[in-house]
C-alpha cells in the first residue's frame, strides 16, 4: 500500500500531468462536438446538430478523403523508400556515414520552411519549370501548385518524414544479428527468402510504428497544406482551424477534430493490420 502511494506520487508530475491535460483536451473536443460549451450561446445541451452541419458538407468529406489519401500515401511511400535504404546501409561502407547524415538532414529544416522552399522551386516560373522547359521535356510550364493529386504535399511529407522512418527501421534492421542471417542462408535461404522470412518479420514492429506515426502526423498536417497544398481543398486540420478561426464555430471544429482522431485511429489500425497480413502472406510462400 505504501509502495502504491509512492509510485503514485512519482508518476503524478509526469504521466499524471500528461493524462490530466490530454484527458481534459479530449473531453473538451468530444463535448463540444456534441453541442456542449457552445460559445455562440445559441444552444447549450447535448445535440447532434453540429454533426449534421459538418457531415453534410462536401467540403468536410473532401477534406476527410484528402487527409486520408495524403496520410496513407505519405506513410507508405516514406517507409517504402526508407526500408531498402535502411537494409542497404545495414553494414557500413565508404560513404555510408555521409549518406545517412544527409538522409537525416530534413529533420533540421522546419516543415514550414521546407514547404516554402519547395513552392519556390516548383512555382510557375520557378527552377523546375524553367529547367524542364529549357531542356525541352515540357512544352510549357506546369501549375504544380494547383496539382489536384497533391504530389507536392506527399513529396513534402515523404521528405520530412522519411528520416524518421529511416531511423526507426535502421534501428530494427541493425538489431538483427549477422549470425541469424547467416544461419538462414546456410539453411538454404536465398536473398529474397531471407528478406521475407527473417528480416521482414523481425522488423514488422518498427515498420508498423513508422507507418502509424507518419500516418497520424500527415493526417493532422496543417502547415504543408496551407503553404504548398492546392488551395481548392482543405486538410482536416486546416478545415478545423478555418472553422474555429475564421468562422468562430468551435463546435463544428470539434466535430472535425473527433473525425480526425477517428481517421488517425482507424488508419493506424488499418496499416498495422495490412503490414501483419503482408508479412504473414510473404512468410507463408514456400
Amino acid at each position, binding site marked *: 500500500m505504501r509502495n502504491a502511494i509512492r509510485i503514485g506520487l512519482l508518476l503524478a508530475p509526469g504521466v499524471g500531468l500528461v493524462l490530466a491535460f490530454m484527458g481534459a483536451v479530449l473531453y473538451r473536443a468530444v463535448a463540444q462536438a456534441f453541442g456542449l460549451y457552445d460559445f455562440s450561446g445559441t444552444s447549450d445541451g447535448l445535440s447532434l446538430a453540429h454533426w449534421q452541419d459538418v457531415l453534410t458538407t462536401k467540403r468536410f468529406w473532401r477534406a476527410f478523403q484528402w487527409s486520408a489519401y495524403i496520410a496513407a500515401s505519405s506513410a507508405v511511400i516514406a517507409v517504402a523508400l526508407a526500408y531498402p535504404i535502411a537494409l542497404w546501409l545495414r553494414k557500413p561502407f565508404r560513404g555510408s556515414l555521409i549518406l545517412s547524415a544527409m538522409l537525416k538532414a530534413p529533420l533540421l529544416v522546419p516543415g514550414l520552411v521546407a514547404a516554402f522552399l519547395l513552392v519556390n522551386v516548383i512555382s510557375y516560373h520557378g527552377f523546375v519549370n524553367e529547367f524542364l522547359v529549357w531542356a525541352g521535356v515540357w512544352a510549357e510550364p506546369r501549375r504544380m501548385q494547383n496539382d489536384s493529386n497533391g504530389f507536392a504535399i506527399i513529396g513534402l511529407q515523404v521528405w520530412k518524414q522519411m528520416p524518421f522512418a529511416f531511423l526507426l527501421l535502421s534501428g530494427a534492421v541493425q538489431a538483427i*544479428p549477422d*549470425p*541469424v542471417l547467416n*544461419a538462414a542462408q*546456410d539453411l*538454404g535461404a536465398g536473398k529474397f527468402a531471407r528478406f521475407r*522470412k527473417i528480416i521482414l518479420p523481425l522488423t514488422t514492429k518498427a515498420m508498423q510504428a513508422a507507418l502509424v506515426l507518419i500516418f497520424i502526423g500527415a493526417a493532422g498536417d496543417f502547415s504543408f497544406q496551407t503553404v504548398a497544398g492546392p488551395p481548392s481543398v482543405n486538410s482536416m486540420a486546416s478545415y478545423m482551424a478555418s472553422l474555429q478561426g475564421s468562422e468562430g464555430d468551435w463546435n463544428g471544429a470539434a466535430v472535425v477534430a473527433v473525425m480526425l482522431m477517428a481517421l488517425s485511429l482507424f488508419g493506424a489500425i488499418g496499416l498495422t493490420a495490412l503490414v501483419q497480413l503482408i508479412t504473414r502472406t510473404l512468410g507463408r510462400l514456400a
Partner: protein
Amino acid sequence: MARLVAEDIAVRFGTFEALRGVDLTAESGSFVTLLGPSGCGKTTLLNVIAGFLQPSRGRLAVDGKDITALPPEARDSAMCFQSYALFPHLSVADNIAFGPRQKRVARDETVRRVDGLVRQLGLVDHAGKLPNALSGGQQQRVALARALAVAPGLVLFDEPLSNLDAKLRDQVRNEIRALQRDVGFTAIYVTHDQAEALALSDMVCLMNKGVIEQKGAPRDIYFRPRTRFVADFIGAANLHRGKLCGGAMSTPLGVLHCCHEDGEDVEICWRPEAARLGGDLSGTVKAVAFQGAHVDVFVSAGPETVRLQVPGELNVSIGDTLQFSVPPEGVIALEASANA
C-alpha cells in the same frame, strides 16, 4: 556423409592475411576439429567452408565436386553458431523446420525429421515455445537440431559450447559426438578449448597465424608435437633449448636424454607427467599444488623452472630438493615453427 577437400585456401582482409594457404581433408564421417588461439584463422576457415567468405585463392571440393563458387544456401553444409542464431520470431519446431522447408523437402518428411530431432534432443516439451523462453543448453540443442534437420553431409560447429557452463558443456559435448556417430555426418568443429578438441576429434588441426601448424589424431598431436607452438598450446610442456650431443643435452637441472639426431641449437620438450621420481635430474621445489590424483610440483634450478606431475600421495614441501628423471622416449625434439 561427405568428404571435404580444401586446397591452398587463402583469405585476405586488406593487407591482413587471415589464411595463408591451408590444405585440409576431412574424410567422410570423420570429426575434425580446428583448434587454435583467437585470431589464428580457424573461424575464417569455417566461414570459407560454409560459403560466407570467398577465398582469395584455393579451391574447395565435396565428394570431388568443386563448390568454391557456390553460395552458402546451395552447399550441402549446415552450421551451428556460437550465439545459436536462432530465429527469435519462430517456435522451436519452426526453427528446426526452417531448413527442410527452404530445401523443399516434402511436407511429411519435414514433419518426420522435426519430430525425430525433437525427441532425440529432449525438446519434446519445448517444441511450441519461442527460443527466448529456453535455457542456454536447450537453445544449443535447438541450434543443433536445426542444423541436422537439413540432413547435411557436413555440419560446421563454430565454438558451439562456449556460452555454456562447465558441467553442461561436458554433457552437450558428449551428445554431439554421439549424434555424429548415430546420424553419421562429417563434422568440422571450431574451438579454442584443447580439452574439447582432444576429447571429440578424429583429427585435430592446430592452427596458428593463418596456417595449420600440425594436424593429426589427438594422441599424435599430444604426444608428438612438432613445434614449440603445438607443444605449448596442447597440454603443458617443459622446454629446453641448447646443444644436443650424443643424444644428450645438459640443462641446469642435469643432463636430459633424447632419441634424436645431434644439433647445435635444438629445442626439446617433455610433458610434466613424463617425469619419474628418483634419478639424476634435481632442483629445488618452489611451489606445490595438490590436485587430488596428482600433485603439480614446480622445480627450479638456475634460471629454469619446470613443472612435474607426480602421484598425489607424494608429500613434498617448498624448499625441498627433488630428484627425478625423464625417460628418453618422453623427450621430444621440436622443429622450428613455421611462424617463429
